């Protein structure tokens, strides 16, 4: 039962998958999902499995533990694990493999455990069901010890908390405990960083790397992104439509891919530093001006009768977007970018400060004036499925905003058809319902809906993140073409730094409701001043060498709650450069000589802020 100690001679291979075929069988038709996959994994090795959505990588992960759900079926092949064919094992023998010798971590940490029950108890239960000899107290002891090893703060207290009381990153640590607590020889990690914020994902990778070294566990590390696996794996397999198309060292695949498919995968990865042409500076008149915007939510404090908490979602945000400019707004979950988006789109009003469009304060406009103004700034959302009415023909959908703004139906139809042509929707789609349209086509409808009003500014709230890379590239091209023709300004609200690097002229980085750095593209990516910006960049998975090594710049922990901000600089609790004065002074966004700005008392890069930041009132 116990893992072989270092004294045992390591067998040549821990896991060998031989010519595995898995088929989808439904309604008398079969379709191959895995088509003759073979791979070998040695003890203590990290093998990466890279493939796009639908390549069959998650099915392979389940097939290795003989848990392929119907209507999928293993048609042929063997999975040799520690010398036994897992696919031939009975239920009883499988119990000593699944969850015991082979651990599993999935892509959805928040949904991986029963949402109602304490995580500690659930892991104890799992451990005792795969190792029945263990007493409750022993199992508990081991879970707590493993919780401490993955650096979950106060394990004894968190043992009794339910999944909803954890953040995504912390919950992924819990799932690492769940996978490793039985001391498995192999852990299958299926896309584990995909839902996480970039700095949290980098922390998880760092944690797994250190654990596998100390525990001697082998990892099958599955991801759709080559840069992600390059952070941890030596060797990689590239899976395409159920076949292994290329196999080799990650560095070799990244540098010189042999197969056409792999070459395309590598070519699609946007460069961040190497050979990036600087974007020209945009000197238009300001379209949108935000001055000292503040938004605070009041929520009832849990467990009290009537006490209230203040959630400071947006704190004193100021910036301007010029005509024809692409403005980027980046930050991690909970940084306030969604609230700011709602303020910019005037779906919600700021509690303080001023938002002016084309020089006019939105708060001062009357209802009729505001409606006319509303045409000129449009919001595009992330979810292409939830944002379209399911029972309306496509052209009617695009006419809708025109009718709202008082166009006659013949006029609206003409403009809608023109817009459809402009965004690349075939005229045949005009009378059909949106069912069955791809995410990319749906986003084109959304773009057309905004476009018909001849807006000046489009607010793109993660508009491209639900799309695959090909669709994303096409839509980006469309955005830039429309900009050249109509002189639009864009605000890209995104967590995707590579996208922002490609298209945004200026970028604002948000942390806990405040813009901590606002700089042009080149400065922000090449010589950022704020330590948080550097931490974000260091956490980016890249194939090229990262300019900001993680050892130096990556942060620990997670952002504090916006209810309970640290005194002084809100970033100081995680800041590697924090000094005594950071606790006393809350730095405001202050410009440097080159026009860029950062909210930091001790910025990187030498030159001091042009004006001294005002002392905070000790909030």
């Amino acid at each position, binding site marked *: 039962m116990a893992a072989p100690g270092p004294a045992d001679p390591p067998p040549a291979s821990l896991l060998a998958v031989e010519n595995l075929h898995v088929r989808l069988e439904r309604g008398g038709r079969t379709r191959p999902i895995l088509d003759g996959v073979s791979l070998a994994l040695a003890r203590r090795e990290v093998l990466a499995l890279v493939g796009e959505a639908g390549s069959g990588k998650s099915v392979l992960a*389940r097939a290795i*533990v003989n*848990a392929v*759900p119907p209507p999928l079926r293993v048609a042929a092949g063997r999975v040799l694990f520690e010398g036994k064919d897992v696919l031939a094992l009975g239920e009883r023998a499988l*119990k000593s493999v*699944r*969850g*015991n010798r082979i651990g*599993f971590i*999935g892509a*959805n940490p928040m*949904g*991986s*455990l*029963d*949402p*109602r*029950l304490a995580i500690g108890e659930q892991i104890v*239960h*799992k451990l005792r*069901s*795969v190792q029945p000899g263990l007493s409750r107290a022993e199992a508990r002891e081991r879970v707590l010890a493993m919780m401490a090893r993955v650096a979950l703060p106060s394990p004894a207290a968190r043992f009794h908390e*339910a999944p*909803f009381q954890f953040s995504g990153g912390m919950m992924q640590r819990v799932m690492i405990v*769940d996978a490793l607590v*039985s001391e498995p020889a192999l852990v299958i990690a299926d896309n584990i960083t995909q839902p996480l914020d970039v700095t949290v994902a980098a922390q998880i990778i760092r944690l797994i790397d250190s654990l596998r070294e100390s525990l001697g566990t082998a990892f099958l590390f599955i991801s759709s992104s080559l840069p992600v696996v390059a952070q941890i794996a030596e060797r990689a397999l590239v899976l395409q439509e159920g076949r292994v198309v290329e196999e080799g060292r990650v560095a070799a695949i990244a540098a010189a891919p042999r197969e056409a498919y792999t070459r395309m995968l590598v070519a699609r990865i946007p460069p961040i530093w190497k050979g990036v042409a600087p974007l020209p500076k945009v000197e238009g008149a300001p379209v949108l001006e935000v001055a000292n915007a503040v938004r605070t939510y009041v929520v009832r404090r*849990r*467990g*009290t*009768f009537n006490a209230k908490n203040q959630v400071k979602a947006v704190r004193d945000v100021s910036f301007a977007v010029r005509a024809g400019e692409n403005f980027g707004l980046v930050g991690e979950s909970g940084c306030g970018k969604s609230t700011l988006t709602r303020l910019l789109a005037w779906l919600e009003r700021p509690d303080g400060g001023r938002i002016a469009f084309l020089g006019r304060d939105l708060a001062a406009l009357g209802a009729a004036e505001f409606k006319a103004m509303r045409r000129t700034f449009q919001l595009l959302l992330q979810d292409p499925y939830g944002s379209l009415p399911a029972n309306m023909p496509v052209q009617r959908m695009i006419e809708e905003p025109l009718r709202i703004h008082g166009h006659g139906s013949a006029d609206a139809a003409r403009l809608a058809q023109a817009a459809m042509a402009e965004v690349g929707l075939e005229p045949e789609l005009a009378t059909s319902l949106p069912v069955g349209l791809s995410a990319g086509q749906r986003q084109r409808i959304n773009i057309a809906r905004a476009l018909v009003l001849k807006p000046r500014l489009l607010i793109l709230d993660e508009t491209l993140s639900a799309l695959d890379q090909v669709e994303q590239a096409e839509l980006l091209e469309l955005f830039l073409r429309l900009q050249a023709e109509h002189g639009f300004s864009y605000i890209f609200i995104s967590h995707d730094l590579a996208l922002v690097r490609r298209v945004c002229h200026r970028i604002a980085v948000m942390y806990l409701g405040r813009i901590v750095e606002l700089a042009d593209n080149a400065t922000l990516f090449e010589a950022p001043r704020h330590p948080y910006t550097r931490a974000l960049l260091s956490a980016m998975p890249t194939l090229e060498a990262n300019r900001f090594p993680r050892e130096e710049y990556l942060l620990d922990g997670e952002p504090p709650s916006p209810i309970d901000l640290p005194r002084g600089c809100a970033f100081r609790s995680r800041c590697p450069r924090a000094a005594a004065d950071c606790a006393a002074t809350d730095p405001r966004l202050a410009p440097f000589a080159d026009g860029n700005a950062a909210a930091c008392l001790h910025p990187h890069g030498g030159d001091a802020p042009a004006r001294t930041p005002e002392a905070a009132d000790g909030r």
Partner: protein
Amino acid sequence: MFVLSFLLRRLAQGVLIILLVIFIIFTLLRVVPGDPARLIVGGMAPDAVVAEKAQELGLDRPIPVQFAAYLRDLVTGDFGRSFVRPKSGASFGGSAFDDQTRQERASVLDLILDTLPMTLQLAGVAIAMALAVALPLGTLGGLHPGRWPDKLALVIGSVFVSTPNFWLGIILTLFLSVKLKLLPAIGYRGFSYTLLPAIVLAVELVPFILRTLTVSVAQVMREDFIRLAPVRGLSRARTVLVHALGNSAVPLVNLLGVQLGMLLGGVVIVEFIFDYPGLGLLTINAVLQRDFPLIQGIAVFIAVMFVLINILVDLIAMSIDPRLEY
């Protein structure tokens, strides 16, 4: 600490709801035609006696004053006295206005508290019967969507939901009671008299429980943590019993809470058919006899029960799923 603040908040809300119910019932009863003083003393009494009775009952005062007086009495636990029912039980016939038995009128609270255990017993047995059938079948249906248990649950649900309760009551009485002599049907002289009306009520409940349970079990079974359970090494039995049923329990508890509330107030038809001496029968008679204090009392009482049941259901749901604590 949390539970305390929760209770405080909910009880405060409950008091508001009950006040509103009292106000509506009180006003409606004063607006509809019919003179209660005349009802009490009987059709043959002279007008002077009616006026005297009205004055004695306070019916001659302005309605807001009557309302305030009624509220004050309620707070002290005095639900008033029935207009027409004597303490002895049976309601009056057409006897003369000076009949001595008219003097001893029954307390509304006593009337309600006498019949409440009967209705609670009926509701409890009915829910137990319904759960015994629907719990296993609904769970199986949810575990195998589209297969035979699911279809069986659907068929049973459709047949039961489209069976009128008065018809079923009569048919069951005919077969089980009259023909086969298995169960007694009319009145109440022991526990066995509860079974037949309980079966009729259970048949009404089963479709709702089946539907709720199959839908929620099927939904939970599609969740990631259930699909991940075999890979983590959990057994199928534990996955279903602890995780699937545990997560389906909250909608079920909510449903049962609403149904229990309905059963307390609304088993009017079934109690009437079987002449079962519960709250429903009391309500019907009170309405037929225009017995204002009794109708008011029952309405207030049911409102209080609804509020309490809802608080209890929320507490249970919160202990099943801590995410519901807010």
